[in-house]
């Protein structure tokens, strides 16, 4: 049976098509979910894609967290549904309190798009279990508000619990505290990542194929998860 991975489209979502393509290339069936529809249509995992949901007005992700689909999704995520928030999706996960901390304006105040080296710090999540610990990968980063911030206690807890999933290597593109590029919740099923694995799944269009690992990981995770 092919895993069904939902990709939510909010008004202003931009990388939803890319996320769906990545899901497909990884061997799963992408299912498009609509922000106004609370139904998750029985998907096995969900990707919250990048973009500017609701114009990112007020604060990035602040309006999207109130979308009907999010009400269902937050409960499902607490119940163990694998959820990957990419860029704007990461911001939404923080706003929805599925992940701690917040993403703020890049310290240099510019939008920045570059190919970025990350080091995978935790392979115990639903979205990173096919990587090697400490593996360095190259995927695009592109954001204006990707500077991860949290209070010291939270950061220390993330470090202590092994919940920092990936860090920037060779230069921090946005000023994130402790070079944090991705984090996970305590259960490891919800991951927020600022760079864009879905843009590194084809040799023709990406800087590498390293992004594919996130999507194959969730398939491996689903196979191992008792139904």
């Amino acid at each position, binding site marked *: 049976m092919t895993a069904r991975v939902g990709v939510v489209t909010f*008004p*202003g979502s*931009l*990388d939803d*098509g*890319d996320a769906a*393509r990545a899901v497909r290339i990884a061997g799963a069936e992408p299912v498009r979910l609509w922000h106004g529809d609370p139904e998750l249509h029985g998907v096995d995992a969900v990707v919250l894609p*990048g*973009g*500017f949901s*609701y*114009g*990112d*007005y007020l604060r990035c992700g602040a309006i999207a967290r109130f979308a009907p689909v999010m009400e269902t999704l937050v409960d499902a995520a607490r119940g163990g549904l694998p959820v990957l928030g990419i860029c704007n999706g990461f911001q939404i996960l923080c706003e929805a309190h599925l992940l701690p901390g917040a993403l703020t304006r890049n*310290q*240099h105040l*510019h*939008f*920045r*798009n*570059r*190919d*970025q*080296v990350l080091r995978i710090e935790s392979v115990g999540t639903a979205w990173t279990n096919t990587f090697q610990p400490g593996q360095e990968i*190259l995927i*695009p980063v*592109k954001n*204006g508000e990707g500077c991860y911030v949290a209070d010291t206690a939270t950061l220390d807890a993330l470090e202590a619990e092994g919940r920092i999933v990936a860090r920037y290597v*060779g*230069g*921090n593109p946005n000023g994130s505290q402790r070079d944090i590029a991705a984090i996970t919740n305590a259960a490891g099923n919800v991951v927020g990542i600022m760079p*864009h694995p*879905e*843009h590194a799944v*084809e040799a*023709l*269009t*990406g*800087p*590498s194929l390293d992004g594919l690992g996130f999507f194959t990981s969730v398939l491996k995770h689903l196979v191992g998860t008792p139904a």
Partner: protein
Amino acid sequence: MTTHQDPAVRAAAGVAPAEPHAAVAPPADAGRHSGPTPATDWADGVDTVQRAAGTGDELQPYAELGLRDDEYDRIRHILGRRPTQAELAMYSIMWSEHCSYKSSKVHLRQFGEKAPPSDRLLAGIGENAGVVRVSDTLAVTFKVESHNHPSFVEPYQGAATGVGGIVRDILAMGARPVAVMDPLRFGAADHPDTARVLPGVVAGVGGYGNCLGLPNIGGELVFDPCYQGNPLLNALCLGVLPVDRLQKKDAAGPGNVVVLLGAKTGRDGIGGVSVLASATFDEGSEQRRPSVQVGDPFIEKLLIEACLELYDAELVVGIQDLGGAGLTCALTETAASAGTGMRVWLERVPLREPSMEPHEILASESQERMLLVVTPDKLEAVLKTAEKWGVLATAIGEVTPPAPDGRPGRLLVTWNDHVVVDVPPGSLVDDGPVYARPMREPADLILLQADRAETLPRPSNPDALRETLLRMIASPNLADKTWVTEQYDRYVLGNTVLAQPEDSGVIRIDESTGLGVALSVDGNGRYARLDPYQGTKLALAEAYRNVAVTGAKPIAVTNCLNFGSPEDPGVMWQFAEAVRGLADGCLELGIPVTGGNVSFYNQTGAAAIHPTPVVGVLGVLDNVADRVPMGFVPRANGDHDQVYLLGDTHVELSGSEWAWVTHEHLGGMPPQVDLGRERQLAELMAEAARVGHLSSAHDLSDGGLAQSLVESSLRRGVGVRIGVPERFADGSLPFVFLFSESAGRALVTVPRGHEKAFTALCDERGVPWEQIGVTDPAGGALDVHGQFRIGLDELRAAYTATLPRLFGGPEAAQVQVEAVRTGTTTIAPATATQPVDVPQRQQPADADDPAAEAVAAPTTGAPVSGGPTSTGPVPDDPEARASASDDSAGSTPAPDAPAATAPTSDAPAGPADVPATGPAPQADAATSDTGEGDGQRPTPDQR
């Protein structure tokens, strides 16, 4: 946002009762005023048609709105009365230079007249954008437009709405926008005002395009003092559509409903085209800020999705975007295009500011709006789709039939039951004034052309060459543009195969077949200043070549013509020459102009910008996997590729980047352009790419061979070793070899085993080739045999530091990470805490390296005995010029150009190191630099 449904529109037959309105204006009292009265004094209501008919001699501010006396008289003649305030506003913007092309029309006709036949063109000039078929089922549409004046007044919003406007043009054709490009030009890089304008413009382009989810795949960044008071923001958008989804702008079908879709209408942008785009700047420019529109890319994103869904459900009869001239333009163009009339209830237009008056609503350039024409039975479905996407949709009017006698219908606009507009739509769209403005070759041109850069002192020893190269690649026009381009999303949509700094952007448009398109935009104001005809052909040639070196087949052209004031005969002459050059060039290359844009009045006081035609060329790649990138390819185990230079190198330094950077010199004649040769090169590249002969290819243009070598090396951190061909060995000729800007050339690398087949193909296609060296993946340096060797780290440091130093902190100084990935360099991206490594010299290469031999003895192919063919600039045609100088505008004909006396004695003497004899056939143009025996190029006297 909610969808505003107005069922009342269906009840409307003639003048329907309007919604109750709290502030219904009392009927205008036509007889109240007697004698000339300022027309702005309507204390008690709007200026109606009825009132206008009764107050014929009322003074109207037409001159302030940019209309001339005779234009105003013509409006009165068309209407048979004075225009109302709203009508006057409409005519003033529709007859402005920006909307009516009144100064350019007589010249632009050539694009149609000289267009080569093309069975690909589905929509051409006159539409919102040209549409070109690229397969049986798919078409692409692309267009470049200017938003120059707004971007100077308010850089962020001016640039943002420039992107937004061109995207809506593409959307209106039925296409999904899939990429943008941004040719940008600013004043001197170190001028304080550039530091104000550039960051705002870049942030605006990025802010809007990123938020729309459109990858930015290329553009230009040029600095020149001539743009100091008139920066140029040109924006290009590419769209893709199924051929059967092509949309029309016709308001066809009387009884059909006119729907306004998108943002509310506000006071922003009022008078944008007439005030900003059609007049030169003066001291009061900063007070025009309210004329600049304010963009909201989120609404535009929703508008795109809503429109595409409407197209796919076949709910739309006609569609037009609202851009310059807003509702006025959309209403009149859609009606005029169909020959129908239209009845519009203006008070139904959703307003941001309820106090807006009819003329303001009609003139507003509020962004993110589209006008739809839909059949009544589909109205509800249209409103429902809009609601799904959270976009406001309002039925504001109805299409009315033509007159019984067959004449086109009229546009009737009411404001709370009062008729404020009653005009023939075609009179605004098609019957605007057309001027054949006087033209005269600028008086200084002949002296400028005589002052040739080929006579300037040149570096003539290895140390000087090395220093020149490092200085050149660090100069603002040649330096790394990452500081700008990393503010743009190039990945979104997942189809970007190549993006800046590659020669072209390449977008995959069909995932199943790999079908894709390549796009490049280029212009060179200095070349065009020296010779607008040749300069425009050179811009075309460069864009064409940039597309060709990726392996794509060029098929269509768009253009944005940025010039000074058309009221200056010198500027008008430059414009006419540029248009003639582009039309002739497209005919020679066999590819049509599909659309474009003219921007005049890029002038402050008497100082116009260099004539700056920006040309975009689109090409097709049957399979994007065949595309050829610009970077040298890393090879393992000491393997390397052969490096070939294609085309002929002449001594062509006039107008060059070197002359400007080193001597602040602009003079002489631009490089020759041979479009036949460009075409041969393009065919060669397409074939070589298809069969896999090429591992990299890079166009040669600004900065010459040296620049291309540096860019191709740094792209993936692969060194290169080249030899200077023997005929370029002496004196300053190595410099010429490295820095001449001769056209029609490309730098390519060929993998081992393909050399014979590739050079045979070159010979077959008639493209001169020369093996000049080898890539040197292990060497980590640019090595010019017998001249100098510069480590890639040193090159990179010089190349990447300039823009961050000028516009941003050290944190912006980053290097291409690709080099890190490929393991070809140890340098890491620089950050504030981790600056770029100090450059280090590399060890000389081993003498027994197989590559060394190849470097030391370049081989030459292709017959070269004839040297360059003489394809000098086409002489001016005084007759054509005179006939085009119709002096209906009341000006005196252009006097003859001053007697052509070549002031050769004024030119500095040639440097002593220039050899007195031409060492080899291909270099024989070099002899001309001694100031004599120039058989290749027209001397100033010939002009």
